[in-house]
């Protein structure tokens, strides 16, 4: 087997192992949370008998490891369990919300990743000049503001004052594409502003690091234009760290949207998670946590694989 395939197989196997470890942690974590689901469902006035009955019914009296096995067994068969608060199947309710979150993350990524890389390249091309300083300054400023602040500023100007975009991002099934895009314009912008600087700064640093190397001088002494030097010789060698930071930010776009979704009342995973945390709905919290972990781990695997594939020494062994 070629070393690249071997490394990739290793990464995937490690990722799966990690996911199992995370599932144990999530399960254990929700077990030590204070509060009692039966109590939460029935309220303060419930009699001890009805509480005991409900606990029996929900299987809360089984030992923890048995409940974990049941839970894990269900997940492996695609059954995420039922929400305690509403009695609905979790997989069904998550389905459309996960899709909404991915939709938002996708468009935020489509805008932010190329923008960050192009800004990074421009900053390198005009390094230490005013273009570089302006780009870095604006990007850092946008990252330094917390996302709820950016969110409310966007709402204030674009929704309240100028009334270009809706302030509340309601989406529903069968919504026309154009309207849907209008609805996510503001949350997607807020997310873009949050992740932009990190990727742009990393692109700049990675390429500047490569620009010090002897082969970039060789390229300059071949009479190539500054842009070609960066595009052909610097960028391909800076790709691994850039992929890494892009993937980290992509993961953040999916996993870290909680605050932005709540601000814009966007019916995604984050909103769903927050709703059910307040209701102490443990199965939902577990399921959402596991899905977030899976997204995070798989994007990091993609980053690892990208870095492996970008390395000519691994792709073309001696």
């Amino acid at each position, binding site marked *: 087997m070629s070393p690249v395939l071997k490394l990739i197989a290793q990464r995937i196997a490690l990722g799966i192992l990690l996911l199992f470890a995370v599932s144990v942690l999530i399960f254990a974590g929700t077990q030590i949370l204070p509060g009692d689901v039966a109590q939460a469902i029935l309220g303060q006035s419930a009699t001890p008998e009805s509480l005991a009955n409900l606990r029996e019914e929900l299987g809360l009296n089984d030992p923890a490891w048995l409940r974990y096995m049941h839970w894990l067994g269900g997940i492996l068969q695609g059954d995420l369990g039922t929400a305690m608060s509403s009695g609905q199947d979790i997989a069904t309710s998550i389905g459309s919300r996960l899709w909404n979150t991915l939709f938002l993350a996708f468009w935020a990524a489509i805008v932010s990743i190329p923008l960050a890389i192009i800004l990074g390249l421009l900053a390198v091309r005009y390094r230490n000049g005013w273009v570089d300083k302006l780009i870095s300054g604006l990007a850092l400023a946008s990252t330094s503001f917390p996302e709820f602040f950016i969110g409310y500023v966007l709402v204030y100007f674009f929704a309240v004052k100028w009334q270009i975009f809706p302030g509340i991002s309601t989406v529903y099934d069968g919504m026309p594409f154009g309207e849907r895009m209008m609805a996510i314009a503001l949350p997607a912008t807020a997310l873009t502003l949050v992740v932009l600087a990190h990727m742009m700064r990393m692109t700049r640093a990675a390429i500047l690091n490569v620009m010090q190397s002897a082969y970039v001088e060789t390229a300059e002494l*071949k009479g190539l234009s500054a842009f070609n030097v960066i595009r052909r010789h610097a960028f*391909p060698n800076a790709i691994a760290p850039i992929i890494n930071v892009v993937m980290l930010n992509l993961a953040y776009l999916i996993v870290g949207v909680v605050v932005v979704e709540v601000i814009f009342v966007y019916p995604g995973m984050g909103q769903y998670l927050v709703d059910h945390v307040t209701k102490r709905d443990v199965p939902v919290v577990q399921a959402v946590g596991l899905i977030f972990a899976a997204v995070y781990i798989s994007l990091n695997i993609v980053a690892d694989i990208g870095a492996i594939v970008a390395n000519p*020494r691994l792709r073309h062994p001696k």
Partner: protein
Amino acid sequence: MAKAPSRRRSTGEGGTLLDIRNLKIEATVYPPGEAPRKVTIVDNVSLTLQRGKVLGLIGESGAGKSTIGLSSMGFGRGGVRITGGEVILNGRDIMKGSIADFRKLRGNEVCYVAQSAAAAFNPAQRLMDQVVEAALEHGNAKRADAEKRAVALFKKLGLPDPENIGKRFPHQVSGGQLQRVMTAMALCSEPDLIVFDEPTTALDVTTQIDVLAAIKDAIRDTGVAALYITHDLAVVAQVADEIMVLRHGKLVEWGDTRQIIQEPRQEYTNALVSVHHIAHQEKKPGKDPVLSVKNVTAAYGGGVIKVLKNVSVDIHAGQTLAVVGESGSGKSTLARAITGLLPPEQGTISFAGKPLPGRLADRNKDELRQLQMIYQMADVAMNPRQTVGTIIGRPLEFYFGLRGKQRDVRVAELLDKIEMGKGFIDRYPAELSGGQKQRVCIARALAAKPKLIICDEVTSALDPLVANGILKLLLELQAEESVAYLFITHDLATVKSIADSIAVMYRGEVVRYGPKSDVLKPPFDAYTELLLSSVPEMEIGWLEKAIKTRRMESAGN
């Protein structure tokens, strides 16, 4: 965009190609804790180069050789600026051109061959793409024609499998081959001038000779002119028609090759020509060796890659064992095994009669103290944020518990020993020259009062005159402190100057071992002969003679 003057191709016609007049090059330096100031790197240097001729630029580091070479392409490395004089190439002053004009001549009229081809190739691109890139960029040839030309050049430069070597990536080719590919890259756009910047310095002597011969043939057959930059007079004597000696950015002497090496007129040139002569009387081995390596076998990758095979050598108190061989022969691995960084799989290492634990972690403080190391790169072997006093004082505190005044007195003594004086005590490494840095490393090793110091290529990164000073210092210190040296080097001239016994290593084995006089006395085994005959000699025509009389090729090919 200004229109570039039309190119005149050098088709054997004579005439001046490059005429540099009163060149002045400056840079701004930012010394730590001081205001930035301007320094003059090249001061009032003039030279002319005829078409098809080779001019050697020689001098120590800081002489401005590379800076002058790059000025022929209008290029200043780092913050270097050409501030005065004219650079007339093909009849026009290139310094009057725009950035676009510079771009048109770089990689087109003038090409560059860098010192370390391994670093100068883009690791992410195939060799062929990089070799033809300049020719395509300047519209000199269509891709198919440029590739055909590249293959022809690969063949001329003696590269194996010339048809397919271009499909490889830089890491798939050896250092010597890469240097030849780089030469092919420079020749591919059919320039009028090539700047060779120490093209063989990073190579083993045994590889250097092949690359040198390939470069020389290529220059002769293509009729390209060249500026050949090196610090090694013996190397430049093989390829150059004329030699220019530079020092501190100023011209010292300029003449034809024969005159410079046979009748140097300036004292400095004379010093360069007669550099490697230290008379060293070989000492007879004593009874009990201070370090004895017996049948040591060591491997990397859990025993998969054997790097030392059954190595046995002895070092006697107050004497020097030189370990020579090309890169990859296991010299430095032997040092790693002795210091405990790579525990041997088999065999024993004993120190003053007692066996040393194989692993570094199992050795006690006194065993560590007795054995010190000095490295090739003095730069990176010191913490840049510590002063010389702290660096030398550290082993005094660690091994002897000296503090305060006692420590300072001892540091001053050591600074005296390395001929630097206690004025250096609060300097930082960045403020020292290469030779001074290496002296500080020597003082740090001596501070532990060791019985043995392992010197790993300690003079390889230094200029010949400075290196000579270091060797003399090491010999004096040996006489005073009766410390033994294990001296790892690929430079046979150094070996002749300081060794008492010699071990020649080849592919992990000791192929020849004994007192210096025996090892250097014929009859030789094939490898030792190759090593000895590959050391450039300051003699015109040496290269051709050496190539003709060789019996074997180096392992690097």
